[in-house]
């Protein structure tokens, strides 16, 4: 399938990517020669549908801290956990086990008690990761700070204790934002607003009052007095992906595309299964495909909310409905 010709009507050579910056937590790139709809799908999928692992169930044995149980449970959920090679972990709902097992969950335990007069801080590093898991990095709390402490969970005074067992599960950010692999995704196109997708508010002059995008010098500014091109479509998209730490940013993009393909594959598979869907034309249908103009509701001998007016209802008009006039309906003269 040659997408180069497919995607663009002109001379362009198919989707291209230009990476402008990348480090451990970021990747900035330009995606060009794709449609806005595809670029937006990519953005949506990396923000909300790339699976990661996060603490989902919290069993609190002892909590004598000043924080409420659910407050701590919420904080625990938000701790980023290592989600590389998440494919090795099942969704709990798909797993063969009864409740949870090493194939679908990672257990983390926390036991902290303050015995000194000073305030004790409990960090993500204090979570002890259970050994029953698919590989030896999945579910590890992400620790990136120079002191190697990780996220702060709670502070304890003398005599206060926390004894908690957490069950981390695989999930997606559509269900809860704690499963998001990204902390932010920048998405930008048309820095000069040539397409007029934005209506910039201004006092005297929009060009001087609005700060320039950093991508403004990547594209030709509009020429003086250039007429508005109403056929123009956005073509270059600037992504700035910031990882939450649980997956590397470039892997997020790959996983996102994979996730999109998984969706498509599932649908193709589903369509193939009851091949072909022509069978479904046997199902209920709207009146225009019925032969003649007979009031269709009368056939069944029962009344629906739509049946009241019989022939005069919006649905009962036979060939007189809006459908009848389309080139597709043929007013029931065909088998369809």
């Amino acid at each position, binding site marked *: *399938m040659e*997408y180069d*010709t*497919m*995607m663009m009507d002109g001379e362009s050579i198919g*989707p*291209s*990517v*230009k*990476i402008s910056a*990348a480090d451990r937590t970021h990747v900035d*790139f330009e*995606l060009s020669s*794709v*449609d806005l*709809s*595809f670029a937006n*799908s*990519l953005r*949506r*999928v990396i923000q*909300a549908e790339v699976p990661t692992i996060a603490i989902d169930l919290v069993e609190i044995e002892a909590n004598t801290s000043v924080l409420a149980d659910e407050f701590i449970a919420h904080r625990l959920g938000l701790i980023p956990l290592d989600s590389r090679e998440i494919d090795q972990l099942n969704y709990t709902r798909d797993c063969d086990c009864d409740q949870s097992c090493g194939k679908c969950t990672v257990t983390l335990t926390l036991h902290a008690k303050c015995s000194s007069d000073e305030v004790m801080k409990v960090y993500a590093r204090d979570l002890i990761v259970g050994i029953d898991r698919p590989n030896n990095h999945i579910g590890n709390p992400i620790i990136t700070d120079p002191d190697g402490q990780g996220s702060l969970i709670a502070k304890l005074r003398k005599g206060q204790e926390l004894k908690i067992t957490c069950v981390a599960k695989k999930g997606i950010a559509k269900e809860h934002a704690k499963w998001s692999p990204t902390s932010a995704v920048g998405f930008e196109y048309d820095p000069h607003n040539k397409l007029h997708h934005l209506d910039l508010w201004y006092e005297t002059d929009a060009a001087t009052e609005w700060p320039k995008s950093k991508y403004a010098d990547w594209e030709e500014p509009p020429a003086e007095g250039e007429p508005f091109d109403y056929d123009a479509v956005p073509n270059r998209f600037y992504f700035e992906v910031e990882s939450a730490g649980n997956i590397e940013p*470039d892997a997020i993009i790959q996983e996102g*595309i994979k996730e*999109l*393909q998984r*969706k*498509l*594959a*599932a*649908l*193709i598979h*589903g*369509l193939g*299964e*009851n091949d*072909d*869907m*022509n*069978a*479904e*034309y*046997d*199902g*209920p*249908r*709207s*009146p225009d*495909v*019925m032969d003649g103009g007979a009031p269709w509701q009368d*056939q*069944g001998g029962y009344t629906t909310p*739509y049946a009241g007016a019989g022939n005069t209802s919006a*649905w009962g008009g036979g060939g007189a409905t809006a*459908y009848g006039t*389309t080139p*597709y309906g043929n007013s029931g003269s*065909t*088998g*369809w």
Partner: protein
Amino acid sequence: MPARTKARAPSAEDADMEDAAPTSAQQVAEDGEPMEEDEDNEVGEEEEAEEPQRVRILPGSTSTAASFEFLKEGHTLGNALRFIIMKNPDVEFCAYAIPHPSEEKMNLRIQTYDTTTATAALEKGLQDLEDLCDVVSEEFWTQREKFMAEKS
């Protein structure tokens, strides 16, 4: 040249109309599950009934003009799929809608010329989008490798 869909012989067979409701009224079977297309089709019960059928054709569809209802899909798939299907020269019209934000449903309307069927156009659209994903994924990875090589 953009590829065309292979035309499929439509198997025109009418069945007795047991119930006809407008598109807006959802068919619900006794068990409360949305009606499956292959309900009357005993052979349709696949051995691995893992993934429930998530696409169905809405009532009132013909072979060249059909509305599909996707369960558990949204703008992520809808808009990209709509675009790629419209790129098919056999397709006269394609649009998608999410009828209500609190229902996880996405409707897709496809109207084709006589050269193909709506189902074939949908299938081709899905395949094309998957191919596009492959291209972008590959391109991203080669550019990443290049960037890494340049940096070090």
